[in-house]
């Protein structure tokens, strides 16, 4: 009997941890309402916003001593996995960052998000940049669900240059055409005896979205019907309503990249650099130019690199290129349906509109979605305005297929699951490494696969969505599209 007893003791010991867990986890859930202080939880997946959130929350808690905001930074790479688990487990935080993989119709269909119509009143709506309130991205069936954190123009591809290197090697004017750029790069490589290259880009698979965006952005100067957009529905020619990747613009841009590589203008580490490595090489003067997104500006500033300037990407003949803005929100917050503290959440969201936006600009991270928040702020660094101006010029309001039919979101999402997972950045990798010899054929094949997936998805929507939802005959590229 004694042996059995001691064994039982062992078992109890073994699972005492588990038991301890039960009791104390119950404590933690009730902690929020203890002492009359409400705790609201917030998941952020944008590391560049971390500091802005911190300062905003600190000020907010000072003004609202009864509310505590608990900020969690979730690694971007695992955000979708974490959201999936949280939704399955009914563990969503009160406020969380939007990710396009889990679309608004999906989330409202599961009844897990709360609309924020009483925060974003009709009067408030008008303060935001044109196009901010668009179906499928920020609103659904006329209700607002997402509070944008940054300007919808966020993430525009542009060119950054190292002023010192350009001066040193006698590059007087910033190249506007492909030929000018190629020559500048060649000059720098030759004069520096191979120590400095013309261009570094981030072309590693994990950063291929960057080269993908740069290719599509530059291609619009040749074939404007297919534009790029970081968070929207991209790659579709909205004149025909079909995906189109084998345009002359995209093919020629790919070939231009190869030319840059063959002429020692492209830094040899480009295709294995992620976004941070390419910035690091640029900051260290290993390349005179880098093509990157808007957010690079704030990072250069944070890293203490000062001697840079920004310009639009060069194009074939120096003609302007553009990127589409479809009302998608590159970063925004959703509210959980199950929040126990909706009143406090509302207070906090209002505070974001009034203070977070200003902090965002003051920190030099990005321009806010409300233009007036930019007024009267001190420039965080000298080039900030320059970057913002380029961004505002390049982003042009473009057709949004969800506007005409919200059900198109499901179709696009379903199609995306079946479409090839590679983007043009991956294809560029294959092209430069010699794995793809016939670029035209590859792009044609990709176009066909994308269109097949789209057609299939439209078919399986049982007539709720038609091909015409993706066709906008009244749209003219380069002209802001205001809808029908």
């Amino acid at each position, binding site marked *: 009997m004694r042996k059995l007893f001691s*064994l039982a003791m062992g*078992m109890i010991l*073994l699972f005492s941890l588990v038991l301890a867990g039960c009791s104390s986890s119950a404590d933690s859930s009730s902690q929020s309402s203890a002492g009359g202080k409400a705790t609201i939880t917030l998941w952020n997946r944008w590391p560049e916003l971390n500091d802005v959130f911190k300062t905003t929350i600190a000020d907010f808690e000072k003004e609202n001593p009864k509310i505590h905001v608990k900020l969690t930074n979730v690694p*971007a*790479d*695992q*955000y*979708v*996995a974490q*959201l*999936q688990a949280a*939704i*399955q487990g009914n563990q969503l935080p009160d406020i969380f960052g939007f*990710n*396009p*993989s*889990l*679309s608004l119709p*999906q989330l409202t*269909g*599961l009844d897990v998000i709360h609309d924020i119509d009483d925060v974003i009143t009709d009067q408030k709506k008008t303060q935001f940049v044109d196009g901010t309130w668009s179906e499928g991205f920020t609103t659904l069936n006329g209700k607002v669900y997402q509070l944008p954190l940054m300007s919808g123009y966020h993430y525009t591809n542009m060119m950054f240059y190292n002023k010192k290197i350009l001066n040193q090697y006698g590059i007087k004017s910033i190249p506007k055409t492909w030929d000018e750029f190629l020559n500048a790069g060649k000059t720098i490589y030759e004069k520096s005896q191979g120590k400095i290259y013309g261009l570094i880009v981030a072309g*590693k*698979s*994990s950063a291929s979205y960057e080269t993908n965006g740069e290719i599509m952005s530059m291609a619009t100067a040749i074939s404007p019907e297919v534009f790029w957009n970081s968070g929207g529905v991209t790659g579709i020619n909205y004149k025909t309503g079909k995906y189109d990747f084998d345009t002359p613009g995209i093919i020629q841009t790919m070939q231009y990249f190869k030319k840059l590589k063959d002429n020692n203008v492209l*830094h*040899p*580490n480009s*295709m*294995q650099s992620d976004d941070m*490595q390419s910035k690091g090489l640029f900051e260290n003067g*290993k390349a005179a130019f880098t093509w990157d997104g808007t957010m690079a500006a704030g990072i250069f500033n944070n890293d203490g690199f000062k001697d840079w300037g920004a310009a639009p990407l060069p194009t074939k003949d120096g003609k302007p290129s553009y990127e589409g803005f479809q009302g998608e929100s590159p970063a925004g917050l959703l509210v959980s349906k199950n929040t126990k503290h909706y009143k406090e959440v509302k207070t906090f969201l209002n505070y974001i509109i009034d203070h977070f936006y200003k902090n965002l600009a003051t920190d030099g991270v990005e321009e806010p979605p409300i233009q007036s928040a930019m007024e009267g702020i001190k420039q965080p660094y000298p080039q900030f305005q320059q970057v913002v101006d380029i961004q505002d010029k390049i982003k042009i309001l473009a057709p949004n297929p969800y506007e005409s039919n919200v059900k198109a979101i499901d179709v696009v*999402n*379903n199609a*995306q*699951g079946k*479409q*090839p*997972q*590679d983007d043009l950045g*991956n*294809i560029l*990798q*294959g092209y*430069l*490494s*010699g*794995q*793809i010899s016939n670029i035209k054929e590859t792009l044609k094949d990709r176009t066909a696969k994308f269109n097949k997936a789209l057609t299939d998805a439209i078919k399986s929507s049982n007539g709720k969505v038609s091909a015409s939802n993706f066709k906008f005959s009244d749209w003219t590229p380069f002209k802001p599209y205001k809808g029908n």
Partner: protein
Amino acid sequence: MSEPLLSNQKPRVKLNTSKRRHRRYYWAYLFITPQFILFVGLTIFPIVMSYVYSFYQWSGIGPLENFIKWENYKELFHDTKFWHDFLHSLEYMVGQTVIVMPLALIMAILFNESKIKGKTFYRTLYFLPVVTSTAIIGIVMANIFGNKDALVNNLLQTFHIIKHPIHWLDNPTLAMTVMIIVGSWKFFGIVMIYWLAGLQSISADIYEAAKIDGANFFSTLWYITLPILKPISAVILLLTVVNGLHVFDLVKTLTDGGPYFSTETIDLFIYNYAFASDGIPRMGYASSAGILFGIFVFLLSIGIGWLIKKAGQDEKVKGKS
């Protein structure tokens, strides 16, 4: 008082063997109960669920509603990317196994020599890569095998072995080679330990006897050490193969499958579909890929298991003769 009495009753216990045996059974069942609970609840159930997912079109959230029978599997059979990735996993596994198995054995034989001083130091040195998280190794190695201003190319250029830097990670074959080298480096220490364990199970008497017979180092190795190691080598082979087929962290951080998916393995394929950061995640499709690949790994393991059995029997036959 009663203690000595009890021990005197030993014969009675022996007589009552059947009762004693049953008692032992109860204890045995009691002993495996905790494992059984963990096993059923936290291993079997999740695995079974992933089999269920593979028959659904499911994004990972919401109820399982869209039952699509064998559609995921059918699609998978026609997915060239899946088969390419399958091949990459095999390539990697074969490469790593071929490099690690013999080299680790050589090192283990060296360290098994009792004469070498500082064994602990060396073992720790060569074991270091095993204990490090792969995330950081991928980043470090990407810098060592870079094209420009990177260690390997600079060394080769300094010694005039190459004129122009080799673009290691830009070339499909070279990128896979680098992956295999780095993976082998990371896994080497654990295999070395396995071999060392095998070597230490050989008693010193056998070596003494060989020495008396006048056998030199190599004939001892060939005629004594290697035959004795045969059964354990099959086990090590199995462990190395299974490890090689499930390479994930290293690919993710070192090449992320590039250039143009030429180093993407099945585990990365599954991850990309299950937790896609653009487009809708396809948990069902990812599950079916995992299961199909799992069946292959299982069959392969059975083959190696058969080898283990055969090697064991050979030993027994030899021992008898």
